[in-house]
């Protein structure tokens, strides 16, 4: 059997085509059991916005950090900054951007030391 055999190359092409047909058409990948870190950017932005909305009333920095940690190992502030950038670029309401900004400010502020009340 020679590598110059046209039947070999025809078979190779048919095999690849069959694989693609099976993988893309007959049995395409169905996503399930994914993690929040794989969310599409718009969903991820809305996730961060929900955290910001809840933070607006709860004012619980730790809870916000825990919720944002589900998005991945990066520092939580990075998710918020990305969300602000996406929201700004996509014309989100000013109120929502302000909520995100408030969350960013909250995360950027170190928690007060025990026994010391902020001014």
């Amino acid at each position, binding site marked *: 059997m020679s590598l110059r055999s046209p039947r070999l190359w025809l078979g190779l092409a048919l095999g690849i085509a069959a694989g693609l047909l099976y993988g893309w058409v007959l049995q395409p990948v169905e996503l399930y059991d*994914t993690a929040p870190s794989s969310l599409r950017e718009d969903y991820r932005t809305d996730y961060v916005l*929900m955290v910001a909305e809840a933070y607006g009333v709860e004012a619980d920095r730790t809870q916000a950090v825990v*919720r944002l940690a589900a998005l991945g190992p990066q520092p939580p502030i990075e998710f918020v900054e990305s969300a602000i950038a996406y929201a700004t670029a996509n014309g989100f309401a000013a109120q929502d951007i302000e909520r995100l900004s408030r969350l960013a400010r909250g995360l950027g502020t170190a928690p007060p030391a025990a026994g010391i009340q902020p001014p």
Partner: protein
Amino acid sequence: MSRGILPLLVGIALGLAGGLTYAWVIDPVQFTSTSPAALRADFQADYLTLIASAYASTRDLDRARARLALFSDPNPAETLGALAQARLASGGPMAEAQALALLAGDLGVRPSPLPTSGTPSPGSRPSGSPTVARSPTVRPSPTVTRTPGAPFRVDSRELVCDIDQQIPRLRVRVFDSAGQGVPGVEVLVVWEDGQDHFFTGLKPELGSGFGDFTMTEGVTYTVRLAESDALATGLVAETCTEDGETFPGSWELVFVQPEES
């Protein structure tokens, strides 16, 4: 086998092997750009809880509905109610359970029609229990403790005898001044050597202001809303008789918010 077909078969085998090696080993699929509906069940629960927590802050029902629609759940209110119960059972934060109950109630679930009464007029407050399948025997009791000035007051307490509901329960309904069920209200149950609590709205199919508690026969209970001083005392699973059969009855307690003057 003909020698002519052999190269073709070898080519197919090599093609498949190469394709799978590339797809599974060299460059395996990395999941990106997924939707919330594809999240693992526990992440979905967290996501739903976050939707409820955000709603509890903003009260933007349209936005909450839009977010819930991502999950294609035909009955999100029931899902949220069940999730609230699960969160409570697992010792999760009460604030989250209350937020879930609040959203479940605000999604528009109203009490089922009562089998023994006519169709209520719009805005009217339902009475009795929607879980009673047969005509219940209701015995009103005059002993209600009222506390003037409380945010909620005890409107009625009735012993409900239903032979189909032989597990005695404290069934609490809380309504606001407009006659709408109020979800997320903490209800305290106290007895001689213990106490417990539950929240309204965790069974939205029974009404957003509904909550219940299983009684133990022979134990006397006092029920109070956490945000009110109104008490219903001396609640015992009294014996009912129907069709010659005796069984413990349940108590139906209705708390209402007085109308603003």
